[in-house]
C-alpha cells in the first residue's frame, strides 16, 4: 500500500476538519440565516434587503440558487450538504486549474531545454 505523504495527509485532514467544523458550528447553532452586512445596509437605506434595481441581465441556470437544495426540509443537514457540494466543486476546480498551469510550465521548461541542447 502506498504511504500517503505528509502534504497530502495535511490536505486530507484539513478538508475533513473543515467539514467537521462546519457541521459542528451549524449544529451549535452559530449559523444565522439573517441578512449579511451589505444586505442590511440596503435594507436600512431602501427598506429592501435584496435591493436590486431593474437589471438587463439575470442568470437563471444556477443549479442551487440561493444555496437551495431540492426536497430537503432539514435546514441543518441541508446547509451542510450544500457546503459539502460547494467545497468539492471548489477543490476540484482549483486542483485541476493549478495542475494544468504547472503542466504547461513544465512542458515549456522541457521545450526550452530541448532548444538549448539543439
Amino acid at each position, binding site marked *: 500500500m502506498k504511504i500517503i505523504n505528509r502534504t497530502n495527509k495535511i490536505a486530507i485532514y484539513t478538508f475533513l476538519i473543515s467539514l467537521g467544523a462546519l457541521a459542528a458550528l451549524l449544529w451549535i447553532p452559530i449559523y444565522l440565516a439573517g*441578512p449579511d452586512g*451589505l444586505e442590511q*445596509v*440596503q435594507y436600512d437605506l431602501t427598506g429592501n434587503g435584496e435591493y436590486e*434595481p431593474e437589471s438587463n441581465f439575470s*442568470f437563471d441556470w444556477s443549479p442551487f440558487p440561493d*444555496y437551495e437544495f431540492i426536497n430537503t426540509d432539514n435546514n441543518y443537514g441541508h446547509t451542510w450538504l450544500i457546503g459539502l457540494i460547494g467545497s468539492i466543486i471548489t*477543490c476540484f476546480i482549483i486542483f485541476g486549474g*493549478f495542475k494544468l498551469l504547472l503542466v504547461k510550465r513544465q512542458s515549456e521548461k522541457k521545450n526550452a531545454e530541448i532548444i538549448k541542447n539543439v
Partner: protein
Amino acid sequence: MHIGEGLLDLSILIPLWIIVLGYGAISLFKIRKSVKTDQVAIISVITAMVFAFQMLNFPILTGTSGHLIGFVLMAIFFSPTTAFIMISVILVIQAFVFADGGIIALGANMFNMGIATLLGYFIYWIIRKKFSTNEAEGSNTKPLLIATFFGGYFSVIFASIICGIEIGISDNFPFGIGVTIPTMLIYHSLIGIGEGLITMMVVSFFQKYAPEYIPTIENLPIWS
C-alpha cells in the same frame, strides 16, 4: 458582501472588470513561477475550506450576520496573488452555481474581496515584520496571531469602504457615499472581528500542527 446584479452601473463595473482582468493575468503569471507541485493539494483544500466557512453566517447585531471573506487567511499561507486566484474561483462558483452575487457584478466582487483586502494583508505583513524580527519562529506565536487578527479585521474594513464607495457613486443606488460608507462601516466594523478571530484560529491551528505552511519572516512575501 456579495454585490448582486443591477446595483452598480456599467460606468463603475467596466473599469473594475479591466482592473480585475489585468490583475488576474499578472497573478496567473506570478503563480506559474512561484507555486510548487506539492502545494497544489493544500491550495485546493484551503480554498474549499474558505468556501465552506463563507457559508457560515455568524450573528453580529439585531439579526444581522457576517461571514468570512478569507482573503488574508489564504494570502498568509501562500501569497496575495495566489489568494486572489483562489478567492476569484470561489466567487465564480458562488455566482454561477449558487446565484450568490451577480455575474456582471463579479468584477466588483473580485475587486472588493481580492484587491481591496490586499491592504489588510499589508497590515499583517507590517505588524509581523515589525514585531517578530527578533523572535525564534514557533517559540512565540503572539506577534503572528496579533498580525493575523488585525490583517483579517482591516481586510473587511477596507473592502467595506470600497464597496460603500462603489454603491454610493452608482446611479442605480439612491444614496451617496456620505451615507453608504458610514452605514457599511457600522456593520463591517463588527463583522471584521469575526473575520479576525476565524483567521487567527485557523492560523493558530496550522502553527501548532503544520507550521511549515506559514512562511517565516525571511520568506514572507509582500505581494507576489
